[in-house]
């Protein structure tokens, strides 16, 4: 028997309850003069600033610049990361030779690369894209390496028994077995890549981008612009994640649930 009781708030909208409450509280706090700082702007002002940004085309310019940088950097980082991870995973010789150096380099905090990158590439696009690529590179290498090394020996033996050629072994056993790990690598590369995009725009401040919008707002004490920028940044991150989620459900539908569902 299905429960026909009406929900006060339908399940799909429950995620919105908290944000709506917070915005309402925020709006009331401003309206009631509860906080008297000039930095506390009302939600309405943020909205108005947002509309203005969209209408004037500034949002489009900043967003497309950031996304463009992000795409380039992440693609380069993922490709290089996949190649390096595959090499380290497949060849013990390569791992022994390159592994220790790689594992040392990966310990260097990402932002510590900025001075070197700005010396090598200047302050322009190249330096930012290099930084983003670096951020995407490391998680991709590690997860690709892990994926290739974790291919179950039992399945390789099945391939051998059925006289698989080396290419068949790679395409039909190794690649699908490593796919979940590689996908995790892609997810992390995208997360860190978007993070690094903002970081690059902040630390290598030149040109246009969402980070530059934030800097702009901070310098002029336009809190509403800063908040609007933050919202857009969050929305992009959310969208990237959602797209990946859909892809994952499609490509990795064969995985069984091994964890509890509360």
């Amino acid at each position, binding site marked *: 028997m299905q429960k026909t009781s009406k929900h006060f708030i339908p399940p799909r909208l429950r995620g919105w309850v908290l944000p709506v409450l917070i915005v309402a509280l925020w709006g009331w706090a401003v309206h009631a003069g509860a906080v008297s700082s000039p930095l506390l702007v009302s939600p309405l002002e943020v909205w108005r600033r947002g509309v203005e940004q969209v209408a004037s085309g500034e949002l489009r310019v900043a967003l497309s610049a950031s996304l463009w940088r992000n795409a380039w950097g992440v693609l380069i980082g993922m490709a290089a990361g996949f190649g390096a991870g595959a090499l380290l995973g497949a060849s013990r010789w390569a791992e022994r030779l390159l592994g220790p150096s790689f594992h040392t380099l990966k310990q260097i905090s990402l932002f510590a690369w900025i001075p070197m990158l700005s010396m090598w590439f200047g302050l322009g696009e190249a330096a930012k894209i290099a930084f983003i690529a670096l951020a995407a590179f490391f998680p991709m290498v590690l997860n690709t390496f892990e994926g290739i090394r974790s291919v179950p020996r*039992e*399945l390789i*033996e*099945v391939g*051998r*028994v*059925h*006289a*698989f*050629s080396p290419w*068949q072994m790679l395409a*039909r*056993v190794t690649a*699908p*077995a490593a*796919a979940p790990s590689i996908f995790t690598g892609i997810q992390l590369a995208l997360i860190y890549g978007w993070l690094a995009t903002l970081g690059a725009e902040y630390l290598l401040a030149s040109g246009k981008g969402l980070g530059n919008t934030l800097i702009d707002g901070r310098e002029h004490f336009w809190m509403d612009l800063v908040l609007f920028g933050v919202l857009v940044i969050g929305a992009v991150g959310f969208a990237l994640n959602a797209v990946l989620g859909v892809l994952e459900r499609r490509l990795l539908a*064969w*995985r*069984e649930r091994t964890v509890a569902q509360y």
Partner: protein
Amino acid sequence: MAHATPLAIRGLNKRYEVKGQALSVLQAIDLAIAPGEFVSIVGSSGCGKSTLLRLIVGLEGDYEGEILLGGQPVTGTGLERGIVFQEHRLFPWLTVEKNVALGLLNSRLTEGERRAAVREHIALVGLQGFEGAYPHQLSGGMSQRVAIARALVNRPDILLLDEPFGALDAMTRAHLQDELRRIWRQEGITMVLVTHDVEEAVYLGDKVVVMEPRPGRIRRTVPVPLAHPRERSAQAFAVLKERVLQEFAAYPAAQLAEPPYRRGEPPVPVGRWQFAV
């Protein structure tokens, strides 16, 4: 029908290097298997029966002696020899149908012939309707049946089974033993079954090869001249099963050692104690 060929193993020796010492896993194995025969191999752990299968199927090499399939020496793996492992080893990202089709990846059949063969073998193991299921949706018995279909789909000359039902419950095991026997009768493929279950060995095999460990040797071959279908509760069956079990009871290591101390006698010093295992 597969063209069954005879398997001849002569003077097979297999050694592993462990810390510089040579460890003999198989010693002087001589085994002749006629085409279409069902041979059961029983033995306790460590008697090399799995290694023997892996050598026949070509997953391991570097042995002394001869393994001849139809007169030709065995080198590496080949589609004429199939194997079913204790774990089903299905590819989790493929459906049942695609998993079975893996066996035909390197065969010379056309697309239509492959589809027909896959369908036929899924029906052979009794899994019609499950073609689109993923391995994680199947039970252990069903997964093992898919593994059997995959091993048979390319009509190998000989099918090796390495404790295929060991991980299943007793009822599923009994059911699958019957299925295996039915498939064997229907297809006429030579089968070699390795098991630690003596009853299973006697139920299915034309002869039971008893192996003993350290190093792995053939102790005795017990022929099973019973007609199929066999009854586990029949007198003749019980007699044969007992005869096989006797082989295990006759290990010298299993004989009780002399007690170290008998009443009235001075005790044997500790240095002269002997232990049973």
